């Protein structure tokens, strides 16, 4: 009996902890949405990722065009459409993957409309569960195909350019708080950023900057 009570108490504690964590996360997101800044700490140092200003967007555009110029001249780097042709010659058909994905997406769309209709009509639990399971299975299939395609095209020129842009946005939008309590740019030059060994910071700042930026 005592063991059961102990288990129930433990379950309640876990639930409460989850709720506290969840509300903490929501508060962080709430702040982030209000002021377009994501602040975090690594080894007692405060960092901030913010939206790019106009000057930084211009800098980013210059660097992006420069990188594109370099990549397009490199014969070892193929455009996505050329890479798709090479794969086809080797028996891997990316167009087929695309077709399968389109068909599954259409099927998911149809099932969702049926599920929506069932919800609106207040149908029984069994019908809702059947549609929900079907949609979940289709989405799992879709995710596998998407992952396949993404892996195959990882080294295309377009993807390399996108990766580079993500790195430059991270470089431009990350600030560190100095001893006087003011935020200053973390890295002064692209070279300093590329040479940096602070992987934790780069990963965290990278994902934060991608969440914030929407148009470059």
């Amino acid at each position, binding site marked *: 009996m005592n063991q059961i009570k102990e288990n129930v108490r433990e379950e309640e504690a876990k639930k409460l902890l989850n709720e506290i964590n969840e509300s903490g996360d929501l508060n962080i997101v*709430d702040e982030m949405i209000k002021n377009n800044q994501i602040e975090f700490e690594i080894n007692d140092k405060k960092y901030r990722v913010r939206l790019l200003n106009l000057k930084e967007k211009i800098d980013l555009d210059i660097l992006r065009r420069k990188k594109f110029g370099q990549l397009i001249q490199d014969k070892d780097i193929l455009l996505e459409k050329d890479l798709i042709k090479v794969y086809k010659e080797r028996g891997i058909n990316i167009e087929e993957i695309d077709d399968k994905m389109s068909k599954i997406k259409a099927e998911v769309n149809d099932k*969702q409309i049926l*599920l929506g209709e069932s919800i609106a009509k207040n149908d029984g639990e069994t019908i809702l569960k059947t549609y929900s399971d079907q949609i979940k299975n289709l989405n799992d299939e879709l995710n596998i195909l998407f992952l396949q395609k993404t892996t195959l095209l990882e080294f295309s020129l377009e993807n390399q350019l996108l990766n580079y842009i993500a790195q430059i946005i991270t470089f431009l939008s990350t600030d560190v708080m100095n001893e006087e309590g003011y935020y200053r740019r973390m890295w002064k030059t692209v070279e300093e950023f590329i040479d940096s060994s602070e992987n934790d910071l780069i990963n965290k700042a990278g994902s934060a900057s991608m969440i914030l930026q929407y148009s470059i």
Partner: protein
Amino acid sequence: MDIYGNIRKLAKSVKSQNLFQAVKEINGLRLFDNESNLSKIQQIYLSYLYFYDTINRDIVIDKISKRVFESELYEDSYMLYKKEKGFDKKEKDSKKHDVKLVMSNKINFPSSEDK
């Protein structure tokens, strides 16, 4: 932390929905520090505010039960069904028939004799 999941949860919360209603009604009240140049997360948040506002309205007028909130898949599916089947359009069309304008050349103004 699942940022997108949390943006959705935040937009669905009673606090955010109340603030959203207030912003729509009270001039000068703002959701964000910036007035323009919305970031990606702000755009996503705003679209979810409208999304949950629509569902809440449908619940109030008994178009749908609160059961829709049982899962995000239910919410998405219901909104997709609503959009695809266009039952808002049907509703608007039927409302159009409520007011009938009768065209006529003869307009009877009250004459001085009627007074």
